[in-house]
């Protein structure tokens, strides 16, 4: 079941002085399945944040359709979603606890004080819950932002650049929280331009460029089909015996060959076994997401 469906989303901004349309999102379509982690990738200005803001209601689309939980966008649906904006801003005069307590009042369901403390503990702010948010560091702000996004135990969580500004420990923690949410059956949509993070977390991605989706798919499939070469390490044979298979590189008493396909690899393995040699390792080298991303953009 699709938790979210975005069909041909369009959004323009009007330049206040020239009164002409500035395209932010030209035509974006994608769907997020229940229980998956979906990544929206793209360079700065691609339209990721505009898309997310249109989903949560901060912006009104100029065209297209958005369906959440199978229905057009409506306010009651927000009981079941959580949103973390990019570089979140909070009421500086409130403590972390007071802030979450304030947000708790905005939901129809009753969120207890115990739940608030649990959430703060989960994001590692238990020690700072009675400190004013105005005194929080960037990392702490991101944590409390995440806390307010999951406070209502949402089914669908939307995160806009959640790793932005976090140190490596913070990023690791954020990834752990996201995996934990997934293990609880939640669906997560997040945007990022930090590809290694996306590669580690996401089940599916959509690559956005200049307001359009240029590539969508399951991450493992996207990267699987982009195997660059297969490196085979062999022992017990000499270069001359293997020269038909391509360039041979010696590394000590081992020889390494790079093959371009599975079939070639199968032939080589059979040949080595026949000739009495030993296969030390077979390692397929896939294109990284970054390489795939750059190639896709260059193709545009």
């Amino acid at each position: 079941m699709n938790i979210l469906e975005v069909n041909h989303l369009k959004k323009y901004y009007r330049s206040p002085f020239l009164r002409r349309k500035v395209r932010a999102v030209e035509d974006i379509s994608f769907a997020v399945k229940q229980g998956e982690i979906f990544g929206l990738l793209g360079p700065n200005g691609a339209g990721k944040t505009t898309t997310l803001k249109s989903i949560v209601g901060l912006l009104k689309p100029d065209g297209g359709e958005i369906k959440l939980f199978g229905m057009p966008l409506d306010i009651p649906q927000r009981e079941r979603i959580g949103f973390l904006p990019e570089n979140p801003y909070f009421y500086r005069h409130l403590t972390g606890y007071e802030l979450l307590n304030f947000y708790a009042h905005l939901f129809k369901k009753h969120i207890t004080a115990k739940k608030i403390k649990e959430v703060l503990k989960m994001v590692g702010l238990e020690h700072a819950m009675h400190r004013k948010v105005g005194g929080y560091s960037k990392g702490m702000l991101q944590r409390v932002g995440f806390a307010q996004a999951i406070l209502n135990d949402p089914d669908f969580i939307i995160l806009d650049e959640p790793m932005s500004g976090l140190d490596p420990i913070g990023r690791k923690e954020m990834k752990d929280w996201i995996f934990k949410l997934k293990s609880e059956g939640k669906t997560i949509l997040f945007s990022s331009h930090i590809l290694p993070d996306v590669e580690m977390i996401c089940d599916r991605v959509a690559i956005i460029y200049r307001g359009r989706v240029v590539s969508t798919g399951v991450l493992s499939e996207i990267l699987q089909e982009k195997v660059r070469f297969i490196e085979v390490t062999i022992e017990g044979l000499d270069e001359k015996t293997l020269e038909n298979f391509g360039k041979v590189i010696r590394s000590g008493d081992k020889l390494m060959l790079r093959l371009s396909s599975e079939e070639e690899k199968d032939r080589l393995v059979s040949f080595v076994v026949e000739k009495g040699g030993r296969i030390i390792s077979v390692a397929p080298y896939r294109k990284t997401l970054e390489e795939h991303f750059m190639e896709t953009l260059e193709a545009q």
Partner: protein
Amino acid sequence: MKSILGIGINTFKEGLRDKTLLSVFISGFLLIAASRILVPISIGESYRVITDFGLALVEVLSVLLTIFIGTRILYDEIERKTIYTVVTKPVRVSEFLIGKLFGLTLLVFSIQFLLFLTIFLFSKIYLHFVFWRVFVWFFFLFFEMLILNGVAILLSTFTTPITSGLISMLIYIIANTSNYLKELSQMVKLPIFTYIANFLYYFLPNFTLTNVKTEILYNLPIDKGLYLFAPSYSIMYVVFLLTIATMLFEKREFY
């Protein structure tokens, strides 16, 4: 209801930290205390001069407070982007605005109450007079300011604090003078002027009917119907203002 209360109390707490509030209260307190100096120059009218001064001061300060804080209340939320995490929650725009109005009204009410208490206290000290009737004026002023708060919030949904401050002030002036304009139009007998005067009198806020300062000052009877008129009119007019504000704010986008 829960969200209205939450937003209102948060607005109130945020406003309490605003230095404007403290400055207004301290200024008001000191000026009321200093009104003692008016006694010798009042030429035998110290009671009315001190009372008048106090009542006028509280009203002026209430108006200034509404304008200083009320016109910024939405603008600051949008500028600081704290609104992002609020409007993405299951909160209707109308609930959000009512919550803001509630918070603003609570702020103005607190200062008004403290200043009225100050007048009451100093009238006892300077004039040896227990001025209970000052709370009657407080009742009417509260409902007038409720309308003005609504005006400030409506204006802040679509314009900057300076513009909404100026327009709020203008509306306050018209609200207190529309009856004279209406009377003037009857004398001038110019149709366009009559239409404008009547429009201002009936369709803009009207504070002339609830201006009971003279009755308070001279201990004259106040029409009992006025006690019902003030809250009814105030609530109805605020519904009018907030409905427009809601329809405008719903169209608002947050880039």
